[in-house]
């Protein structure tokens, strides 16, 4: 079995991109119950409504749903659910997994899975708390290369300039990367 070098984290923001491209690159994690037209390897949830919706959605039938401990205890008899692993970065942020958003949990899971390149699609960086957490997680995992993927846009983002392991790219470049194999 070959080790994947790419993993995709799909946030809950609307996407104008064909996710099958990412599927060919490696495993995919979705944050929450959005993007039901794609089958994901992993999903993260932090609310009961989302867990219930996922358990009732055919597209999540083969997806491993990762939830925090409190939710896991409530849904322990559902085979598809697993409790979040211990993320050292969460402790260093002085938070618990239950306090994190689904997209932060998805990103932490991607880092924990120890796959070098992480592509972020539909990831919300407009929310300032989320933005700060993304940067904290990025700096806590220097061995991971985190790439924020967005629509082609001539305006540059300087957000990740100080972080050597974080960068920005666009949908076009990801598609080209996939074609090159």
């Amino acid at each position, binding site marked *: 079995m070959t080790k994947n070098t790419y993993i995709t984290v799909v946030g809950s923001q609307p996407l104008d991109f064909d996710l099958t491209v990412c599927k060919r690159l490696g495993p995919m994690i979705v944050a929450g119950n959005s993007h039901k037209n794609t089958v994901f390897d992993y999903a993260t949830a932090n609310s009961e409504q989302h867990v219930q919706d996922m358990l009732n959605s055919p597209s999540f039938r083969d997806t*491993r749903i*990762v939830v925090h401990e409190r939710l896991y*205890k*409530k849904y*322990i*008899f*559902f*085979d598809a659910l*697993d409790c979040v692993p211990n993320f050292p970065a969460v402790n260093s942020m002085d938070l618990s997994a239950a306090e994190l958003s689904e997209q932060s949990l998805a990103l932490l899971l991607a880092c924990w899975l120890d796959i070098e390149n992480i592509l972020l699609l539909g990831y919300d960086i407009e929310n300032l708390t989320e933005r700060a957490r993304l940067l904290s997680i990025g700096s806590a995992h220097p061995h991971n290369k985190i790439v924020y993927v967005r629509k082609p846009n001539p305006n540059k983002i300087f957000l990740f300039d100080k972080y050597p392991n974080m960068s920005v790219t666009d949908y076009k470049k990801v598609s080209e990367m996939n074609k090159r194999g």
Partner: protein
Amino acid sequence: MVKKTEKSKNYKYQIMLKWPAVCRNRSPETLQERPDLALQMNNFRIKLDNVCKLIMRKGYRIDESHNISGLNIWMESGQDLYDFIIRQPEFDWEIVPEIGTVNSLTGEYRKWQLIYMPTGISVA
């Protein structure tokens, strides 16, 4: 070598069923001296296996190793485990109020406390 057609089993859940009251906490020496107890335990295991064959929808495994408290049962499905717990009065057996789970991501085995409530069961 494992046959390609044979699906590998993943026992995610574990629960312990207590031995009949007279057989609990008996040392191997006592069991050697009391063949009636050993026979009762053996019959209990056979009964459990037969019931499991009837009620379990997915795979299960009864631990072969001896435990003085009871029998360890591993199950693939959480639904089977839930049914097994709920149907205790029907088969007149007693479960140790603890559930063991194996995390599919980490492989970590963890125990959870089972709490019986008038409305059903919950886990702490």
